[in-house]
């Protein structure tokens, strides 16, 4: 944050420094000129001629009518021509000043715009910084998590190793334990043996049986001597029992088998009956292809062959039997499945009548809505993507982009300025025309005045004579006098105005304010056709506009103060003007 703000400050300060430089230059260049005019000792008694020629030259170079013509030959200066020339010069100067001020206003606007954009840029940069920080934070977290995972993996590995170790320990202990147990058992056996021996050898308390008289065997037979024969007999008996067991088991199995076979046969019969009925149905159906018919024939064969095989017990017969059963079972299954599907189809058909259409439309609608949702989602995704791209470009890109933007905007601005200047030029043109017309009228009036004077002189001259007629010439005189006073006033106010303006040029803002009033208004003022007080009002209005626009800038207070100062100056200057003009 701090870094970025300082950057911004730098930029602002640099721009502030940069901007006024041409104006200052201008003002500095214009200042000595002003002084020259003020304290001019350009013309003196001895060099009037030279000055005149020089001024003439200068004026002609400016494209104005020369102050006087050589052709006239008179050494007297043509006051009218001089005045005209002066007026022209003053107008030119005003015009120039106004354009300058306009341009400065534009400049201000653009600068404020630039500031605004820079502010924006800083904002964006801040955001960028923020997101970058977030990114780094996330990266850090990811790193930490990875670290955690790694440690967990390590611990898992350790645990596994531990488990392995423990298992090894357990197994080793178990084997050791087994070994010990065996050793103990051996010892125990030895002890038992020894004990047995001791007990057998012991005389005093021997095992004994005390029977009153022996009893006969339960089966009444006598016991036999153990011989090979008896052994063989035992073996034989054992095998006999085993055999009898197997015998009984086989018998049971046979019984079970017979039962199962019966069931199988029953099933077979049922299947055959079902399938044969189906076969007949198929045969009736003409549309069935030949393949199925062949199948059916084969089936028939199967049925025939299977009939005898049931009673056979050899492996082949059994295999055949099971195969047949399997085949038939498969057919039955397919048949049942077909029936099932038919049934379901029929059911569906029934269902269709009632609500099939509704469902279809419903599904269509659903599909459409789903598609729409998908599209919307895509759109949102692309938007997000674009936003992301916008919010996180690299610095060089932004710089280039920004510069491009500035260039374009500047171009635009210049074009607009050009347009306004063009308009102003037109206005000036018109004014000039008006002015020339006025000058023509003036010259006409002057001529009339001249005539009047001539007449008056003649009358005066004649009044000296005995024939006096006073009424008529007086009326004409008063009219022209009024006129002349007006022109004088206008001639006087113009330089006054000029001076004030020049004094104001030290602050660039004043000039731009002076430019803003409509030129016609100015003209009227110069002719004193409008009251002077009114002229301050539009200025104020513009002030407010400027104020509101500039308020975006960082260093407003100073400027505003300047504004106020200049305004004050202006407002002060006008009464002065008035007093001087009156």
């Amino acid at each position, binding site marked *: 944050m701090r870094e970025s703000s300082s950057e911004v400050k730098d930029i602002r300060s640099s721009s502030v420094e940069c901007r006024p430089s041409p104006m200052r230059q201008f003002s500095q260049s214009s200042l000595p000129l002003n002084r020259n005019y003020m304290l001019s000792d350009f013309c003196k008694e001895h060099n009037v001629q030279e000055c005149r020629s020089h001024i003439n030259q200068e004026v002609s170079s400016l494209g104005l009518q020369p102050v006087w013509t050589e052709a006239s030959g008179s050494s007297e200066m043509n006051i009218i021509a001089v005045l005209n020339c002066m007026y022209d010069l003053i107008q030119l100067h005003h015009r120039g000043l106004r354009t300058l001020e306009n341009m400065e206003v534009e400049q201000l606007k653009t600068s404020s715009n630039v500031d605004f954009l820079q502010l924006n840029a800083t904002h964006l940069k801040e955001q960028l910084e923020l997101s970058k920080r977030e990114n780094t934070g996330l990266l850090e977290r990811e790193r930490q998590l990875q670290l955690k995972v790694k440690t967990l993996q390590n611990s898992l590995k350790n645990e596994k190793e531990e488990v392995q170790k423990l298992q090894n320990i357990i197994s080793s202990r178990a084997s050791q334990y087994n070994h010990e147990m065996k050793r103990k058992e051996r010892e125990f056996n030895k002890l038992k043996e020894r004990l047995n021996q001791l007990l057998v050898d012991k005389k005093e308390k021997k*095992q004994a049986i005390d029977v009153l008289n022996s009893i006969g065997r339960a089966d009444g037979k006598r016991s036999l001597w*153990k011989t090979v024969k008896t052994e063989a007999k035992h073996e034989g008996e054992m095998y006999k029992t085993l055999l009898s067991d197997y015998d009984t088991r086989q018998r049971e199995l046979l019984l079970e088998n017979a039962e199962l076979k019966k069931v199988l046969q029953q099933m077979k019969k049922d299947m055959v009956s079902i399938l044969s009925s189906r076969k007949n149905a198929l045969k009736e159906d003409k549309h069935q292809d030949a393949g199925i018919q062949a199948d059916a024939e084969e089936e028939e064969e199967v049925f025939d062959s299977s009939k005898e095989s049931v009673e056979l017990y050899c492996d082949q017969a059994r295999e055949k039997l099971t195969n047949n059963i399997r085949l038939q079972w498969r057919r039955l299954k397919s048949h049942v499945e077909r029936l099932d599907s038919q049934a379901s189809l029929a059911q569906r058909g029934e269902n269709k009548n009632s609500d099939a259409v509704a469902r279809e439309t419903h599904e269509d609608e659903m599909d459409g809505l789903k598609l729409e949702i998908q599209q919307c989602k895509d759109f949102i995704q692309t938007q997000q993507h674009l936003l992301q791209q916008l919010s996180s470009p690299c610095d060089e890109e932004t710089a280039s982009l920004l510069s491009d933007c500035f260039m374009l905007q500047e171009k635009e601005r210049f074009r607009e300025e050009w347009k306004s200047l063009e308009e102003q030029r037109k206005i000036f043109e018109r004014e000039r025309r008006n002015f020339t017309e006025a000058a023509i009228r003036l010259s006409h009036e002057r001529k009339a005045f001249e005539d009047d004077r001539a007449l008056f002189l003649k009358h005066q001259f004649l009044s000296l004579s005995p024939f006096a007629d006073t009424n008529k010439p007086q009326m004409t005189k008063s009219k022209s006098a009024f006129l002349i006073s007006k022109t004088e006033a206008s001639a006087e106010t113009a330089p006054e105005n000029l001076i004030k303006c020049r004094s104001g040029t030290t602050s660039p803002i004043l000039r731009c304010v002076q430019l803003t009033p409509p030129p016609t208004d100015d003209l009227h003022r110069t002719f004193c056709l409008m009251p002077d007080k009114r002229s301050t009002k539009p200025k104020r209005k513009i002030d407010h506009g400027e104020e509101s626009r500039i308020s975006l800038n960082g260093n407003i207070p100073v400027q505003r103060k300047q504004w106020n100062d200049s305004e004050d100056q202006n407002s002060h200057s006008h009464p002065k003007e008035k007093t001087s003009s009156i």
Partner: protein
Amino acid sequence: MNFSEVFKQSNQLCKVSPDGKYLATCVQYRLVVRDVGTLQILQLYTCLDQISHMDWSSDSLFILCAMYKRGLVQVWSLEQPDWHCKIDEGSIGLVSSRWSPDGRHILNTTEFHLRVTVWSLCTKAVSYIKYPKACQKGIDFSRDGCYMALAERRDCKDFVSVFVCDDWHLLRHFETETQDLAGLEWSPNGCVLAVWDSCLEYKVLLYSLDGRLLSTYSAYEWSLGVKSVTWSPSSQFLAIGSYDEKVRILNHITWKKITQFEHPATISNTKAVVYKEVVKRPAVGSDDLSLHNITIGTTLFNTQSKYEICPTPVQLPVVKPDPDRANPKIGVSTVAFSSDSRYLATKNDNMANVVWVWDMQKMSLEAVLEQTSAVRCLQWDPRRPRLAVCTGNTKLYLWSPAGCVSVQVPTEGGFQVQSLNWHCSGDSLILLGKEQLCLCYMDHDQEDK
């Protein structure tokens, strides 16, 4: 249902003769033989010491009384009361004594399982079998009495010896693939011998009579394994109860598992009927409840109880075993087939109050009996699909496919049924209390239901 009067007995030594005619009971050092029908005393024998074991010979002619502390065995003849026989094992000691199937030989196992002494009553001959293994069930006779299988331990290896009982001829001797053989049992038809390993390893081995290994079955590894093994009377199934609270049923042809019965704490099987015993105490004033009940035993023990059928799912009480103790009280310890092999009754040790009855035809749970106290003993009627259960209180519980009943034993002084034995006819039942016994006669009408 009728009950006899109460007789004295000690050490719960009370047995009906295999032919079903006589009832032998031991009272301290006396042996009393009664007629089952009349309960009249037929014979009275006096032994040398307190009797610790008593058994009938297969022909119901002789009675064996063993006094383990003295290392003595006395044999009495029912036909000849004067006849007597005394076998002294001497200082070698005695831990177990049993009849051979022919009823003419007595097999005594000496202390420390040093040997098995075979005494012949016919010839007074004595023979020894060395290296018998001390285990859950080390000796088993085939049902027909022809063969005896004996577990042996030699050189830290397990062996099985098959003897012909007739003349104690060693028929087969083979090593078994067990770590530590725990037991063996003949199939009822006497052709297959099931051998199982100790609980540390789930392993069941099936040997033919001639010593061939028919099959090996192991359901899982590592955790505690087999807890009980039982053949169905038809030899068709082998039921293996294990520590994982399951019973696995093997078939007799392929020796593969047919199915497994689990014992879940919640019964959601809608086809099974769950009977829950509900106790109703007789109306006693609440103020003197405790004192009254303790002082007067009869009222305490004469509580009424009946079965209620609970709609599934039912949550059964489960006791979690202590994992640090050996022989944890978990897993199926009792597996019993009904005489017709149709039903299987099981008990899971961590649900001691519950008896499970399974249908072997449908291979599904048939009924569940949830008792108020732990089941002590359960036994099938030898003739009918009828299960008798006792839980150490004054009641007898009977289950049959028709239903379930709880019967109060109508005796004075609180007769607590600790154990029970069916008479071979299935008509009566011997109920054993701590020091008493009584007979319970079944009604024929009820049977028909």
